[in-house]
């Protein structure tokens, strides 16, 4: 028995000149997991924000259970049984789970009967859907995965029949993703309807029963998941066929350009995060570093690029010692010696998002000729340089004067990459090069990294995307709990083997 729970007809939404949603029609059936897939900026989040009442559509109708409704605010959506889990959680960090969930729905001045009832209801919900949340724990003590569950619980408590999840796995570790998927499946079993917004094909194939594809603000196709495959979906998303596997030449590794001996690094809280790590990267090879987020990769990258102090051990660049716990080069000096770094978190570290694009395109190189002469910035040369590399790296739009935060994630990443690669570094440290980047840009970025390798650079690739590590690297090491727990040649390794290493099982 299939009955539609949510029907959208001819939805249009514009922001200024941008037509974010064009004549969208979408029917979601009760008790299904419905995937909405599309590149970043395809209009998925806008559409779901309309359904959740955050934006109002310029035209079109929304029906829930066959009845036309008018959504003016999230409150209207909640009344109509629509709940949403945002990419960025809306939780008060120093409140407990219980306090967060009843926030705005307390129902009484002095806590008493209603609170007890709420507790009981929440416990029941937790048991039904195996959420496994302690209602009395404080949000700031919970991991990202658990915070997400709190958001789900919050929606359920408010009576959500339709649950919209916006890019739910972007912040999760693979284990947490598995847990989340289990929860989502059990929600479906209990008759809830789930709308999953994502740009990850694998999640669509894994979880959904139906899928709708968006491209440039339009709905380009609906299909049953069982009738399609990854390649077909990818093609629909970008409007052309995409190379999911990379063609790359045989590795021609040369001398060791970058090596790390017995490196130990502590984090800001004085916890040892990198434990006696040894690494060697040769000219012309990509060394992939796989691992679940939070196993010391971030601290390792920061130490290697001169941002974080080395606790003990040594780092060598072209055979010369550059850092130990006594003497270390700062990021600027390492850059001068030919080491470039694409940081894991582009908005926190790689860019000043309030800067104009051209200011970010020289970031870290701004004191060099010809960008700056005796401390005065050479505006004309900076702009012409920016235009040149924006064209070369296909950064869109090609306007050096645009504020960086107005670029999409993929284009922001291209700004960083073009800046760092343009210097032709001998050693390149890359963290999560394609996190939050759409498929078209991923392909481009991967190709650039391969080009760098073929030109003889030594590249360290840190990524939580196993696919990425597998398709790019020549050798792979796995990091777990701050230690290197295994090294594999890319030719004879499976993702299963790596997965076990990443989980610390072997």
């Amino acid at each position, binding site marked *: 028995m299939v009955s539609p729970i949510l029907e959208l007809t001819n939805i249009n939404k514009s922001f200024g000149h941008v037509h974010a949603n064009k004549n969208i029609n979408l029917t979601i059936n009760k008790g299904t997991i419905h995937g909405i897939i599309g590149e970043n900026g395809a209009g998925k989040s806008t559409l779901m924000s309309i359904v959740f009442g955050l934006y109002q559509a310029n035209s079109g109708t929304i029906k829930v259970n066959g009845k036309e409704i008018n959504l003016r605010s999230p409150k209207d959506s909640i009344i109509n049984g629509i709940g949403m889990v945002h990419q960025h959680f809306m939780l008060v960090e120093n409140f407990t789970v219980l306090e967060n969930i009843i926030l705005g729905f307390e129902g009484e001045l002095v806590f008493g009967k209603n609170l007890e009832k709420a507790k009981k209801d929440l416990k029941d919900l937790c048991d039904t859907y195996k959420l496994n949340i302690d209602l009395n724990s404080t949000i700031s003590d919970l991991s990202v995965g658990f915070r997400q569950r709190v958001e789900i619980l919050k929606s359920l408590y408010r009576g959500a029949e339709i649950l919209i999840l916006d890019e739910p796995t972007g912040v999760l570790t693979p284990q947490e993703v598995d847990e989340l998927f289990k929860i989502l499946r059990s929600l479906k079993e209990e008759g809830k309807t789930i709308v999953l917004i994502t740009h990850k094909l694998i999640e669509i194939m894994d979880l959904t029963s139906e899928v709708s594809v968006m491209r440039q603000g339009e709905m380009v196709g609906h299909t049953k998941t069982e009738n399609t495959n990854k390649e077909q979906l990818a093609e629909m998303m970008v409007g052309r066929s995409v190379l999911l596997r990379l063609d790359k030449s045989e590795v021609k590794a040369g001398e060791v350009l970058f090596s790390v001996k017995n490196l130990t690094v502590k984090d800001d809280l004085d916890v040892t995060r990198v434990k006696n790590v040894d690494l060697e990267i040769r000219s012309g090879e990509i060394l992939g570093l796989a691992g679940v987020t939070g196993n010391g990769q971030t601290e390792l990258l920061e130490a290697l690029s001169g941002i974080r102090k080395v606790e003990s051990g040594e780092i060598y660049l072209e055979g010369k010692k550059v850092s130990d716990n006594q003497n270390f080069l700062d*990021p600027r000096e390492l850059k001068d010696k030919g080491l470039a770094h694409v940081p894991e978190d582009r908005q926190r570290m790689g860019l*000043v998002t309030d800067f104009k694009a051209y200011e970010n395109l020289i970031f*870290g190189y*701004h004191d060099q000729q010809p960008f700056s002469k005796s401390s005065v910035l050479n505006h004309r040369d900076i702009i012409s340089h920016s235009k040149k590399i924006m064209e070369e790296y296909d950064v869109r739009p090609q306007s050096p004067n645009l504020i960086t935060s107005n670029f999409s994630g993929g284009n922001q990443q291209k700004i960083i990459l073009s800046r760092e690669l343009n210097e032709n570094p001998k050693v390149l440290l890359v963290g999560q090069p394609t996190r939050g980047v759409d498929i078209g840009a991923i392909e481009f970025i991967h190709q650039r990294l391969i080009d760098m390798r073929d030109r003889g650079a030594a590249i360290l690739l840190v990524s939580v995307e196993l696919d990425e590590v597998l398709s790019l690297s020549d050798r792979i090491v796995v990091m777990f709990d701050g230690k290197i727990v295994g090294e594999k040649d890319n030719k004879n390794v499976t993702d299963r083997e790596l997965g076990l290493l990443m989980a610390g099982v072997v």
Partner: protein
Amino acid sequence: MAPVDKSKVPWWVSNLIVPLVNLTLALLVSGLFIFIAGENPYEAVRLIIYGSFGYIEGFAYTLYYTTNFIFTGLAFAVAFHCRLFNIGGEGQAYIGGLGVFLVAINFSFLPIPIVWILSIAGAVVFGAAWAFIPAYLQATRGSHVVITTIMFNFIAASLMVFLLVDVIRDTTQMGPHTVALPKEQWFPSFKDFAGLFGIKIRYSPLNISFLLAILASVFVWFLVWKTRWGYEMRAVGHNTQAAIYAGISPYKNIIIAMCISGGLAGLLGVNEILGVHHKIVAGFPAGYGFTGIAVALMGRNHPIGIFPAAFLFGILYQGGSEVTFDMPNITRYMFVAVQGVIILFSGALENLFRPQIESFFVNRLNIKASA
């Protein structure tokens, strides 16, 4: 209400229309005050305009106040680009004045133009030194500059009172002030200039420091947007993590930004000591340091915005004194309240109507574009 796409908002809407609307609202509310006080608001506006523009000396007074607000406004703006909330302009200006006086009186044997240049340098160095201590504490120990700079205002005030009473007081006089500088060291005033052209006018405190304020504006513009230092300061201000990644030292830039800020505040001492009082009098910064914060915020921390904002406050100061003179029900404190309302609307409530105004214009422009 849906948020407006920021990139679609024309620059003149956010930088001209919004401040003007806020200013109008502030003036309407101020008009209400005046009405409640039992005076005619329309008449008050007429008096303000007459007082600040209506006769040459009044206009000169307006520009004299403008000079001070430019210095303190620029001072706040420079630190703010490094996301440092330097509210110590008052104290830095006070100590800057000490620098001016000490240099001028001790180097009086040198040719006058050299004394002037050295005195200006003295103002900058003393102001910067007073800002350096909070800057150092912020950079190394994370002591917040808002707390330390306001403390340093009090310390500066106490220190100056001590010096003016016990150390450098003019012992032939009763008041807490120093001896006057030799007359030939005084900055040429507007009156002197007018005299050169045979125009006779009465006294006003306007002097060539006004030109120094214009120069300082150009300097700040160049520093913040055209040099590596400004670039690095802004990078640290907007995203400290990214600055560290790019090899830019937050430590160094916090100190540089605060010292430049303090130096600019110190220049207020040049206007007051060389141009007006010709000696240090107790409490000469008279709140300009604090008003400079509002000037900078209203001028969006850009010299091009700071100039009109400083001019506006100049009008209010000068026109306001005219009003209090002619309207018995309006006291000096009434105009402090008017300033407060302007600061409230253009500072604290700056974004009160911004979304509505911006979406109004964006929608209008869209209709036009699609028509």
